[in-house]
């Protein structure tokens, strides 16, 4: 096997003390960067680029450091999602849905462990996918034109109902709000600013991270401030629970991990889809398939395993178009790509032939980093869960502080801080109204891409709507979208009464 021989060469490149040390540092920093609200993988990698420059690292070690940070951040994002209900970065958004309820039920340790294992499974098999399938998968990416991408995003929105466990109307409202927010900024297809009110800061649109940190982290702080007088809130007495999950629980989540790895990997391979879509589709798909008793959204371990396997698999998948085409599949790979170019490596169809040491060294480093992350994350679960023991009155000021520092650190703009506060207030109001926050972010993340691709397709085909159904792939995606939207309405009748009967007032948070 040629591939395996190349991989062995890669391991020879990667297994030096210096590279192992860099991978370890990268994994550690990445986990922390991912866990801190306001810092996601793309900022984490971008912030460390100057470091790689200053150290004067050659191409392979520099890439090993940065991809370890990337994988580490994908692992780390789940930690604050589960413990604090604040997604550490955008792909970890879906993990809040079941992670936080599990933590509230005293199963934080198990949730962290399950999600750590799921992250490993997703990343591990995605890396194998990268090894064997990269050249073939590039052809899949080439099947997707604007019309197909549009159908894909419609499919994602059609299954949005799966996110909201209770009030569909409010979820739809939240998604619409997100779609509206996504339209802010200069419109690429006309070059005209929309809803910017002459404010230069709004020309680039609203940064996802600013919205996420505002809606989730700051609104949490506001709610705390509001209830401060109440004193003994339920939050203070959260139990930590066991740290090692029962074998039965792990076994139950294995099918979810498997399915989600595949879905996430495919979403990652498509440039313009990415990890957020990967974790989202994985979650909604898993919910459709296996949510028999309406436990999703209330702390089902499969609801954590699915998005975490999905987003980590997507991280591996996103490296396929980056290495094989030179096209970034996500924000983070865009930054990695810039780094490659600066190192005098031209990514593209010939990269595997021209710089095999870089490519295979990198892939070997991914395997090593992934093992390190698993080894690092499982024992550290007991450390992470201690966060829950910190009284809220100390934790919340720290959350506020990290949010402000993180957001200011990305753009150096006080305007972004104002936007973040505005989102915080919005989040607080919406929580009062019991409107779920997750669909808003999904609206922003996916709506932007959905609109762009629709407009591209329309431009190319001179506004001919029928061209949206011009390929079998597009028709297939549309069919899935329609089935995904309609089927639950019909089938749901048999399940819905049962779910509705369950007491809603479990004391769970609005989302």
């Amino acid at each position: 096997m040629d591939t395996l021989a190349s991989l062995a060469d890669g391991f020879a490149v990667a297994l030096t003390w210096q590279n192992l040390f860099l991978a370890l540092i990268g994994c550690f920093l990445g986990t922390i960067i991912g866990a801190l609200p306001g810092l996601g993988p793309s900022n984490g990698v971008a912030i460390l680029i100057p470091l790689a420059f200053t150290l004067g690292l050659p191409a392979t070690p520099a890439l090993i450091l940065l991809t370890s940070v990337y994988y580490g951040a994908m692992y780390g994002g789940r930690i604050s999602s589960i413990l604090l209900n604040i997604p550490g970065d955008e792909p970890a958004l879906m993990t809040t849905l079941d992670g936080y309820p599990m933590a509230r039920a005293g199963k934080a340790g198990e949730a962290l462990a399950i999600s750590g294992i799921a992250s490993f499974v997703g990343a591990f098999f995605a890396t194998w996918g990268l090894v064997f399938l990269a050249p073939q998968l590039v052809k899949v990416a080439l099947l997707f034109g604007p019309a197909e991408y549009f159908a894909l995003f419609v499919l994602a929105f059609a299954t949005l109902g799966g996110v909201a466990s209770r009030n569909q109307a409010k979820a739809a409202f939240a998604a619409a709000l997100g779609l509206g927010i996504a339209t802010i900024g200069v419109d690429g297809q006309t070059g005209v600013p929309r809803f910017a009110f002459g404010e230069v800061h709004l020309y680039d649109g609203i940064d996802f991270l600013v919205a996420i940190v505002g809606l989730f982290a700051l609104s949490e702080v506001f709610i705390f401030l509001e209830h401060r007088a109440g004193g003994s809130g339920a939050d203070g007495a959260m139990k930590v629970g066991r740290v090692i999950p029962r074998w039965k629980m792990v076994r139950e989540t294995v099918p979810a991990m498997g399915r989600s790895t595949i879905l996430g990997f495919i979403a990652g391979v498509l440039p313009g889809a990415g990890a957020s879509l990967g974790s989202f589709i994985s979650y909604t798909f898993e919910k459709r398939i296996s949510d028999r008793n309406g436990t999703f959204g209330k702390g089902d371990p499969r609801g954590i395993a699915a998005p975490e396997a999905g987003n980590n698999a997507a991280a591996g998948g996103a490296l396929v178009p980056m290495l094989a085409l030179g096209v970034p599949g996500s924000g983070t790979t865009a930054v990695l790509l810039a780094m490659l170019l600066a190192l005098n490596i031209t990514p593209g169809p010939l990269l595997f032939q021209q710089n095999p040491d870089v490519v295979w060294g990198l892939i070997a480093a991914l395997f090593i980093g992934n093992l390190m992350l698993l080894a690092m994350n499982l024992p550290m679960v007991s450390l992470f869960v201690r966060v829950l023991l910190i009284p809220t009155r100390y934790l919340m000021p720290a959350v506020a502080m990290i949010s402000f520092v993180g957001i200011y650190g990305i753009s150096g703009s006080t305007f972004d801080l104002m936007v973040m506060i505005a989102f915080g207030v919005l989040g607080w109001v919406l929580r009062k109204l019991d409107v779920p926050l997750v669909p808003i972010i999904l609206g922003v993340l996916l709506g932007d891409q959905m609109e762009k691709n629709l407009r591209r397709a329309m431009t190319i085909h001179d506004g001919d709507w029928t061209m949206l159904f011009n390929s079998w792939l597009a028709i297939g995606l549309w069919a899935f979208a329609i089935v995904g939207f309609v089927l639950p309405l019909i089938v749901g009748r048999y399940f819905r009464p049962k779910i509705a009967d369950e007491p809603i007032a479990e004391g769970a948070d609005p989302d």
Partner: protein
Amino acid sequence: MKKLVGLAAVLTLASSLSAFAFEPAKTECIAPAAPGGGWDFTCRQVGKTLQDLKLVPGSMQVTNVAGGGGGVAYAEVVSKRDADNELIVAASSATATRLAQGAFPGNTMDQVRWIGSVGADYGIIAVAKDSPVNTLPELMDMIKKDPSAVSVAGGSAVGGWDHLKVLIAANKAGVEDVRQVKYVAFDGGGEAVTQLLAGSVQAFTGDASEAKGFVDSGDIKVIAVLAPERLEGDFASFPTAKEQGIDVIGANWRGFYAPGSMSDDAYAYWVDAIGKVYASDEWKGIMAANGLAPLDLQGDEFQAFVKESIDSITNLSKQIGIVK
């Protein structure tokens, strides 16, 4: 007496460093975008070269001021840092394009001082390898015959540099109403090339460096390089637009501007420093690595160059209706 010796020592030290009346204490480069982008790299690489050549004391601090396609940084420099002698800001054709189109509300190019360029990335127009089109005039004829049959993909927004390059070419080729040229905006050149390979669009407009990987692999066919003469290296076999009778040059230059009220001494210092960086062997290596072609303009020459390109972009933007 001691004082006098100290003063003399300081004077000798100062004169040994350089002959300029201005000496910076700590220098700063603003990259008007998030880390990892083109402006960020311009700052960091020039900063590193300045440091290696000992043209600045210590290292140069890079600050990222992202937002508004560079507009946030521009407004901040004009309003808050106007007299800062130790500051330079990374700029490129995109900066000139946005200034020309009034996308930095209330700001004009006269509010800052333009220092110099450090290279240029020339534009290319390409088609897929199995496309029946082989030359730029052929593509333009297709557009003339039926504008709706040709979609051109690029990595910038409508009105951005990738779009304008095609329009300038179309204009020179005699396409009467350039607004008819169908341009599809993607998120970056890489995505646009992918759509060319996928067959969604018929042509690609971008920078030479963006297309390099695909040119090497033979997946795309470059039909015109928008440079004054043929590029060196891998691109040497591709004809310029000029050779094909369409006289158009599309250079995505990279360079710097400085605050508008910077002292003349400081301005002279920076013009000299950037000129020295450009002339150095270190920088030649970086240019080769990043696919940058020569563009050697400093001081007044550069100021005039930026003015001219802003004027021509303003005209074109009025023609296509982006600027009223």
